[in-house]
């Protein structure tokens, strides 16, 4: 039976009815049409569906939608401010951290989550932080470079 669910997504309050077996990913993509968050494996392995929940990264396919009650969720759609990309997005563009693009929203959310916890990561910190994001195109080198450059850029951007 559907239950009422209140939560905040990208700063906007939502109040809706959700089925008990919906994942947060089902809710975002199939019902709210926030399709920036990607469905990869749907079993918590690939990281394509990574979002921030309460400021921490979470695979949205592994969260029951009703467990997100009263929580704050940020998806990749919530990062840019108007036409200005988030410094992590900007760095992925500048340093070529994108090829096919399917893993990109998840990688970007993992990077944003890392920089919230640790604004000055080492390369090893970056590699550990994206261990849960699979990318079959880039070989990760440019992704890692982009995240390190974003970390450098962020204090200057006042973020």
């Amino acid at each position, binding site marked *: 039976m559907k239950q009422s669910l209140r939560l905040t997504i990208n700063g906007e309050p939502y109040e809706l009815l959700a089925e008990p077996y919906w994942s947060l990913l089902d809710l975002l993509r199939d019902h709210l049409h926030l399709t920036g968050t990607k469905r990869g494996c749907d079993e918590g392995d690939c990281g394509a569906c990574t979002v921030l929940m309460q400021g921490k990264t979470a*695979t949205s396919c*592994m969260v029951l939608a009703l467990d997100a009650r009263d929580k704050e969720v940020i998806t990749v759609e919530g990062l840019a401010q108007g036409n200005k990309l988030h410094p992590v997005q900007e760095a992925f563009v500048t340093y070529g951290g994108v090829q096919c693009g399917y893993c990109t929203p998840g990688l970007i959310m993992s990077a944003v989550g*890392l920089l919230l916890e640790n604004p000055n990561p080492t390369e090893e910190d970056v590699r*550990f932080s994206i261990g849960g994001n699979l990318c079959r195109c880039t070989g990760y080198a440019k992704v890692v470079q982009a995240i390190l450059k974003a970390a450098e850029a962020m204090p200057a951007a006042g973020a």
Partner: protein
Amino acid sequence: MNRFEYLEARTLPEAITVLGQDEGTRIVAGATDFLVRWRQGLWKPRSVLSIQRIPGLDRVDYSPATGLSLGSLVTIRTLELHPLIQQYYPALSQAATTFAGVQIRNLATVGGNICNASPSGDTLPALIACGAECRLIGPEGERLVPLESFFLGPGRSALRPAEILIELHLPPPPPHTGALYIKHSPRSAMDISTVGVASVVTLEGGDGVCQEVRITLGAVAPTVMRASSAEALLRGQRLEAGLIQQAARAATEDARPIDDIRGTARHRRAIVEALTGRTLRSAIQMAQGASFPFQTQRALAVEAML
């Protein structure tokens, strides 16, 4: 995939009552194991009971006199990053760092990792090596069960119907104790261990004989297990290189591995020997006072083929 109802408990008595009303109700906490098995069609509950909003189950308390109390909802990420856990129970933080990826560690709970009772559960060897005890609460009241005797087989535990794991207790580590967990898996993240080994060593006076040692092996038997004959060789002895080698070989005889997709039994025994020796040698150095920054411990704990 069956459809299920979503129930929620706000107190423990409420949770126990709800669980007792229908055996088709399954507890969920982080839900990271649940959703995988449900989508695979392996678990078909009529209802899930979320215990996430029961207050107090996510507490971490440490005191030098009584040790560590971990609520069952403490996340794997907290085990990884909590400064007191890193300091006093380093094997537990090391094990947490080898667990899936950050975005799963932020959701998955220590109680869930235990109650799923997988022989390859990443936190289990470290918890058993640290002497963890489980506090269970159910319709007949509370009881304490050593984690070592909690597991009955793959996916099977000592939990009785409508019983809930609410807390873990780990005794304080004696002075001059060192510990290392190493996970060997095909990939360094998001993979299930082929073998995991935790060693916790306490030396008399920091440079003396071995006062106590616990060696636990993951993914080489139907449950996580102690390498008892390896431990017996070391207790009360000076831990010299030859003896460590002997103990590592003994651990391969303690293990009861099988052939599966992640490795053959023979390969697993060889890994047990290598990891037992390696975890013991580092644990001894730490017990002697060598200080390893967490970044170093992390690099030691994650061992992958790729």
